[in-house]
């Protein structure tokens, strides 16, 4: 079949475009070290009280000589515990690892306006680590339909300067 040379050219161009898209994504994950949430662990959603999720909140840990924070969050119909009734308070410029699970149905945990976003699945622990570079308030929204009040399900993360961080709210 004879194909006009211009047509050959833009068919090749479309392959170049696909290769370029794939190359940028590979570059992002290899050279720029972008991360997505992967498998972490499973948990029995009926028995969260015997796990750190039974006492959810912010914990302080020391890892490799650095102070880091762990945040255990339960997503329930229709709130983040903690997050909705009281904001999750964490200091800026520290590594923070979130562990999130759900005792009832599928929820989402989306820190609005950032790349922090995960599903929370009954029986699965969603884990991700981040550093909040500036002190400000972030909104959390549920972005998986979870029931009739799904649209009301929201919370807050309050990132404060390290000097203003109140350690009396930490859980053991």
């Amino acid at each position, binding site marked *: 079949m004879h194909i006009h*040379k211009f047509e050959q050219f833009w068919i090749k161009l479309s392959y170049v475009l696909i290769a370029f898209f794939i190359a940028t994504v590979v570059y992002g994950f290899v050279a720029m070290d*972008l*991360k997505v949430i992967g498998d972490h662990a499973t948990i029995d959603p009926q028995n969260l009280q015997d796990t750190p999720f039974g006492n959810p909140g912010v914990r302080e840990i020391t890892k490799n000589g650095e102070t880091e924070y762990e945040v255990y969050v339960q997503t329930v119909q229709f709130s983040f515990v903690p997050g909705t009734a009281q904001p999750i308070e964490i200091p800026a410029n520290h590594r923070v690892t979130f562990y999130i699970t759900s005792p009832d149905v599928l929820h989402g945990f989306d820190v609005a306006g950032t790349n*922090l976003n995960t599903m929370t699945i009954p029986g699965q622990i969603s884990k991700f*680590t981040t550093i909040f570079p500036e002190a400000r308030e972030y909104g959390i929204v549920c972005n998986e339909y979870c029931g009739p009040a799904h649209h009301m399900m929201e919370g807050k993360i309050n990132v404060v300067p390290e000097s203003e961080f109140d350690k009396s709210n930490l859980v053991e």
Partner: protein
Amino acid sequence: MSDELSQSPDTAGADRSWEERNPDIEREITIDEFQPKGTLTLTLIYFAIVVLMWIFMYFVEFAGNAPSIID
């Protein structure tokens, strides 16, 4: 509107070839002599727009949207 104008030239004389219906055509060219440079230019402009928008979306809007997942 006259009947002649309301009919499209393609249905008016379906039994005659396109060349016969258009006797004022002066020159026939082969497919490779046909060079749609305007179409090529438009294609390249669209290509550049798609590439630039992708770079903006991926590297600025997505990768630059800190805080991100680091581990």
